[in-house]
């Protein structure tokens, strides 16, 4: 290699080395202590500090929770709110609006009103004044007025032997004005009374493709049909309730007894008395994660001498809350007996499953009940909710003479 080449080479090497060492000298001084090392890392982060960000879903949920949208929708304490549910079983999904004003009489009374309607032209308008905490919470009272219109009420005939094929319908409008009061007669016992003015009006059914009740059944089988009258209802009741938790019970029981007089105010043809006994018992085991739940309901109506129980005020069996393997109002008569038993087991925190069996019967007289000939069904269900209550239940009912039934329903069965 020529000397000039060597010189060039040396110059380049020195230049590179100088550049490298200069660059090294210009890099930040290596930390000499742990504290310096951590400080350097924090200094680097300080250059990149930015606002803490939340994802869109999280932001929406925060907003919903802080704004309490669910409470507003489901159980708002004040103001207007939407209503979603059922006017009455069989009405179809109903929509409406409600209003609540909880600050009356020094916040001792709550006024609430609602109007709900369904595509099947069912509607209910309801207004009531509630005083739930009177006399230092020893008493409560309620005054109400409501107007309802149920145009397609199912009717299959009276008595336990009614036939599914004899499906008819009738309309029922009703106006009710009344009040009730109760006093606490112990930590768990409430006793009280109720007085109502009723103005029910039965008429031609509006369901397309289903016979009107008057065309399928003779007048003696539908007492009270087309005979407009008003009623005074006077009732006394006692309610012993020690269920826990109250809205989705796993233990305890509830024993409710009422006795009511329905006084025909105009015709003196349809007055009757009604005794109802409603018993619920919950037997838990395995730390309340398994529950046997029992329900018995007896409704016995006895016409005043020489009068009849109007068919439209009779209790009925069949539907998602009682005999679940039958259509709504499948059986109707003056007297009713319902027996239900469920085995419920917790699947996880928000879901319970249940096996159930229902049995029931209607009869013209209490003495006509034949326990060996009860209508029965059984089934399986899932309940979604929490200890505070069942929000939704999905059930399949089988084993009845009316075939299978699928049930999707808000709220608990009992």
């Amino acid at each position, binding site marked *: 290699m020529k000397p000039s080449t060597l010189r060039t080479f040396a110059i380049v090497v020195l230049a590179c080395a100088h*550049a490298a060492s200069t660059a090294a000298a210009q890099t930040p001084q290596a930390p000499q202590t742990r504290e310096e090392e951590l400080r350097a890392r924090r200094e680097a982060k300080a250059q990149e500090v930015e606002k803490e960000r939340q994802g869109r879903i999280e932001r929406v949920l925060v907003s919903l929770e802080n704004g309490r949208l669910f409470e507003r929708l489901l159980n708002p304490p*004040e103001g207007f709110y939407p209503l979603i549910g059922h006017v009455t079983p069989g009405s179809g999904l109903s929509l409406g609006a409600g209003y609540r004003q909880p600050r009356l009489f020094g916040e001792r009374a709550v006024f609430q009103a609602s109007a709900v309607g369904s595509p099947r032209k069912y509607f209910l308008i309801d207004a009531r004044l509630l005083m739930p905490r009177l006399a230092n919470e020893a008493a409560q009272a309620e005054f109400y007025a409501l107007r309802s219109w149920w145009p397609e009420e199912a009717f299959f005939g009276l008595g336990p032997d009614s036939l599914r094929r004899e499906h008819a319908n009738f309309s029922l409008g009703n106006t009710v004005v009344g009040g009730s009061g109760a006093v606490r007669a112990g930590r768990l016992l409430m006793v009280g009374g109720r007085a109502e003015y009723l103005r029910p009006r039965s008429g031609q059914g509006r369901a397309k493709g289903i016979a009107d009740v008057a065309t399928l059944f003779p007048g003696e089988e539908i007492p009270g049909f087309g005979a407009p009258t008003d009623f005074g209802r006077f009732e006394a009741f006692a309610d012993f309730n020690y269920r826990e938790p109250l809205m989705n019970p796993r233990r305890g029981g509830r024993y409710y007894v009422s006795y009511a007089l329905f006084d025909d105010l105009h015709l003196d043809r349809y007055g009757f008395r009604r005794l109802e006994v409603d018993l619920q018992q919950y037997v838990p085991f395995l730390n309340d994660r398994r529950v046997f739940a029992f329900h018995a309901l007896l409704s016995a109506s006895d016409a005043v001498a020489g009068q009849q129980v109007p068919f439209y005020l009779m209790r009925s069996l069949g539907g998602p809350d009682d005999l679940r393997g039958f259509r709504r109002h499948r059986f109707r008569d003056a007297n009713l007996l319902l027996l239900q038993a469920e085995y419920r087991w917790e699947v996880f925190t928000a879901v319970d499953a249940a096996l159930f069996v229902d049995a029931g019967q209607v009869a013209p007289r209490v003495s006509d009940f034949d326990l060996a000939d009860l209508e029965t069904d059984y089934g399986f269900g899932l309940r979604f909710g929490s200890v505070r209550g069942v929000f939704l239940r999905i059930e399949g009912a089988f084993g009845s003479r009316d075939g299978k039934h699928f049930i999707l329903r808000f709220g608990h069965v009992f």
Partner: protein
Amino acid sequence: MSSSAPSVFAHSPRRPGRLRTLAVFAIAAGSLAALLAENRTRAAAPRFYPDDPIQVDNDREFDASGAAPIEGSNVWDFVENTFFEKGDRSPIRALNVNTMDEVPDSSWFTNRIGRFDLSPAEVGRGPNTLDAVDIDGWPIVEGKSQGVTPGYRVVDPSGRRYQIKFDPPGNPEMGSGAEMIGAALYHAIGYNVVEGYIVEVDPDRIVIDPEATTVDLSGRKKRMTMEDVKLILRRAARGPNGKYRALASRYAEGKYLGYFKYYGTRADDPNDIFPHEHRRELRGNRVFAAWLNHDDSRALNSLDMLQGSEGRRFVRHYMFDFGSIMGSGSTMPQVPRGGNEYMLEWKPSLLTLVTLGFYVRPWITIDYPKVAKSIGRFESARFDPVRWKPEYPNPAFENMRADDAFWAARIVAKFSDEHIRAAVARAQYSEPGAAEYAAKTLSERRDKVLRAWLPGVNPIVSPALDEEGTFTFRNAVVDAGVAGKPTAYLVQWHHFDNTNGNGPGEAIGAEIRVSEPRAPAPVERLQGMDFAAVRVRTEHPEFPHWAAPVTIYFRRGADGWQAVGLERQDPRAVED
């Protein structure tokens, strides 16, 4: 032609070729020089710095004034931790430990009972700076809008706020008692917790500030009235004297910043550099939470506060809300599932569903002693620390390794029965037998925690090397009475070069077998050395994994040898 042509032809292009070669050499030489320069820099980074092991991580150095409050969603917290795997799940050593494998003091944690001998009275006092407070006459300034427990907020004459929380009617003293015990124990462990006091509220002496507001169930802010207070008191336990017992939580100083997550770091806090799922005190919290049945140990029950002076603000991180520990579920007794299963677990749920409930999860059969309403559901007989679970997965808990659990268990081991009784006394239980049962159950659960997690690693602690050349250490499991003495300790000394960043070097002499935690060091061979390393393996018939070595590094200083490093080989992952 062929002979001359190449010479001419070759001559001409050879010049550029030579230049290219020259350039390549020059660049290579330059690169070498740069590499050497960089190596010089790198070589300057020793494995142990002069200030190792640090006792304090100064995470208040950079101003965090820009940090803003974060509102959390209960639903999202459940969803993201149940259905997604948040944070980094690498099974790495905790990132915020010092070189001795300990947690330095920081804005997250202050070593208390783990480093110092606290008296029972100190544990019992907890974080409180006052002996007691009497809130009668303190005006209510705000309703309590968050959480399930009924309550409101008052201010003392100096303007300091307190949050008042009441016990559920069916379980007087339960929630407030749990809060007091939890705060005392978590404070003694080392976490930041707010001050809390048991108070009695006389309904006849309640005062509402004229400007007081509350948020009703529809989310609307409104003026607070006595009817609102009555609604709150209706959900509260009333004592025989007509008064309402409550917990008064004193607001922490500073500006409210919301909560911290158990993964990642706060983007707006320059001092927050260690991912939370890799912070030892958050991983190890699984041990403490299991001990106390703190199944509500989730992100939303933490608290970040901006503290410090102007230009030197920093974020202090608190553990918050102990109303759902032990047998308390805040507004009701703890559910039987609490601490035993996540809120949602697919396998047991499906098994339960398809077997019509004949598949019985183990926790369902737990027989919770009915001792007192203030205790709720709390027991020790069926408690399994390793299988214990919070309400839903917690990324830091999921990342807990055996060495994290060991660190936490050593702290639990420092709590004597007297310490526990002192903490329980804070609850001021009035029901006969309640305090005794709570203390006994906590002690029994402590013992189970120690048996489960202390032996998880080779439990060599407190190493020392004196000038005479005697190497001593302790066995944390033996010290805690969890197991008997090991068969032997196998001690091997090594050279160690602190400048190259590698582990122990060449062995010095042969491995020494000793039966006591004491072994001679090769004093002559250590002459002139600034550093030395020693590996200790332990032979114990019950714990074969103690054969995984603990490596200890010593540095010679003016006062003799100082232990500056301790590394445990993780012998096994903590079982789920």
